[in-house]
């Protein structure tokens, strides 16, 4: 490639060299006036070269001249003619930065759209609950295969991570509790500490958070990519209700499996706590078990497990709803998947706080 050159001699622009997409920017086309443009020295030439010539020609025309193009080969003439047809007369005006009014408008739009989102998600909740009740009334329409498949995905496959997590939580509680309680010689109360915090709160809350990260995001991604490839529209035209086919089995599977995962988490949390108490405080497993049975009411377990189906509903609804919001592009899929996880974890924690207040008022 030789660099292109432009020179003004005797009222003629003389161009030389290769006018190609990679090189035309080096030409200075802004200065000087001439009656003709001579291309006889131009070797390689492409659309960008033709663009440069037409730009120059337009500038000369707007200065009141009528430039002639000379020395162009037939191919070059053709290409320049094509460009003349296809070039906008005025370049698009560059837009200025946003003003205060724009920002205010944006704020307003954001506020309204989040309100609309809230309403839409509540509407979706109603639709799913209605669909599930409809299925209960007509059990022949329940998709057992799908439910069992999702139960395996969200339940069975989550057992290792959930039980490891709860085991470690039990270990940490025992370890931290022991350090404090030893100061008062009240080592044995570590059993109550572990039992109440794991059974009432931590077991089910942390399980729900893990499931939201694991399965909520998977729901959004799966339904979202089906939405993207128009599979959901195809389903509707076949007379299939996407809520019944895609959403209901996932939500039902979660509602069934989250309590089970909660029980597993409770159990391994207690095991972790017991082992650590034994090592740190010398509380033998026998003593731990006896104290657990005599001092911890079974109601603590109940308080924890009652929350599980509600958490499951939140995770399932949010995950599927965000999936349904996906538009045609890949970016919205990624964006909504992360929204889905953040939103469902937030709502799970908010619901947990409400439950705490509720149980405090009931004094259980």
């Amino acid at each position, binding site marked *: 490639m030789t660099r292109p050159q432009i020179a003004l001699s005797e009222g003629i622009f003389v161009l030389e060299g290769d006018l190609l997409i990679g090189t*035309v920017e080096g030409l200075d086309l802004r200065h000087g006036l001439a009656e003709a443009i001579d291309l006889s020295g131009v070797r390689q030439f492409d659309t960008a070269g033709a663009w440069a010539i037409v730009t120059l020609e337009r500038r000369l025309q707007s200065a009141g001249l009528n430039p002639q193009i000379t020395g162009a080969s037939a191919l070059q003439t053709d290409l320049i003619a094509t460009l003349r047809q*296809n070039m906008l007369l005025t370049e698009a005006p560059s837009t200025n930065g946003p003003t205060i009014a724009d920002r205010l408008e944006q704020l307003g739009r954001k506020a309204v759209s989040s309100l609309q989102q809230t309403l839409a998600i509540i509407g979706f909740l109603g639709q799913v609950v209605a669909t599930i009740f409809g299925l209960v009334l007509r059990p022949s329409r329940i998709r057992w295969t799908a439910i069992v498949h999702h139960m395996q995905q969200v339940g069975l496959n989550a057992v290792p991570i959930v039980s490891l997590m709860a085991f470690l939580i039990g270990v940490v509680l025992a370890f931290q509790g022991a350090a404090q309680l030893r100061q008062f010689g009240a080592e044995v109360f570590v059993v109550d500490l572990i039992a109440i915090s794991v059974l009432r709160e931590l077991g089910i809350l942390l399980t729900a958070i893990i499931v939201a990260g694991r399965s909520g995001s998977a729901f959004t991604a799966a339904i979202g990519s089906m939405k993207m490839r128009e599979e959901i529209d195809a389903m509707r035209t076949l007379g299939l209700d996407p809520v019944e086919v895609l959403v209901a089995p996932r939500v039902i599977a979660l509602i069934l499996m989250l309590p089970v995962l909660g029980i597993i988490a409770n159990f391994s949390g207690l095991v972790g706590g017991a082992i650590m108490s034994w090592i740190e405080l010398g509380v033998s497993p026998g003593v731990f078990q006896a104290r657990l049975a005599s001092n911890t009411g079974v109601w603590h377990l109940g308080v924890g497990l009652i929350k599980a189906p509600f958490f499951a509903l939140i995770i399932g609804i949010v995950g599927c709803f965000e999936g349904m919001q996906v538009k045609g592009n890949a970016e*919205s899929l990624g964006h909504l998947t992360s929204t889905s996880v953040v939103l469902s974890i937030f709502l799970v924690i908010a619901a947990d706080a409400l439950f705490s207040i509720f149980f405090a008022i009931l004094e259980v």
Partner: protein
Amino acid sequence: MAAEPIISVRGLITRFGKHTVHEGLDLDVQQGEIIGIVGGSGAGKSVLLRAVVGLLKPADGQITVFGENVRDTSADDYRRLRKRWGVMFQDGALFSSLNVQQNVEAPMREQLDLSPETRAALAAIKVRMVGLPDDALKKMPSELSGGMRKRAGFARAIALDPEIVFLDEPTAGLDPIGAAAFDALIAQLRRALGLTVFLVTHDLDSLHAICDRIAVLAGGRVLATGTMTEMQDIDHPWVQAYFKGPRARAALAQKEAI
């Protein structure tokens, strides 16, 4: 033919697991011609295209483009080669998170160091050249019709003024007027830019209107190559059915009437 072919495929073998798609395929494409590749659905046209542009490593055989071996080039050589061709995939394959203008600018942004204004101006020209309205520039691919997506894909394929463009069924799914306009566009750009066009198509009208030569793919090989009229005389049931069926006769009659 004296000239060195711009694309040359020798003894190409491609497999997916046990399924052999090509077994010893040979094909030459000359500089500046429009070659039409036809063959039944699943005959391996798209796979051939992917092998030629180096997206798919064949099991065996030799593929040279611009006289350079595509199969085992270094990454640098491949990058240099890739600048000289443009590809339009069967379903457009636009980047869904970029608008049309950004899609067309993408190859310029990757390969060259242009100012944003120049890039925008060139992208606008390419978009107009493929016959899209100006307001399409700012639209996302999901907001375009199928035919518009194809045009935008074509605009991206010619963004860098390549020497070869590979087009996979550019006119499938277009209305007849749109398809004819697309054919005219390909022919016009070929003339203006001196393109070589590797055109996979089922569209008999396109084959008639713009292809210099046709290659028929069947049974993992190129069964025959030649002009449309030469195809009429080839004695093979599939070729006969394809080029002498009612649609082919209609296309031929139409051409003679003009």
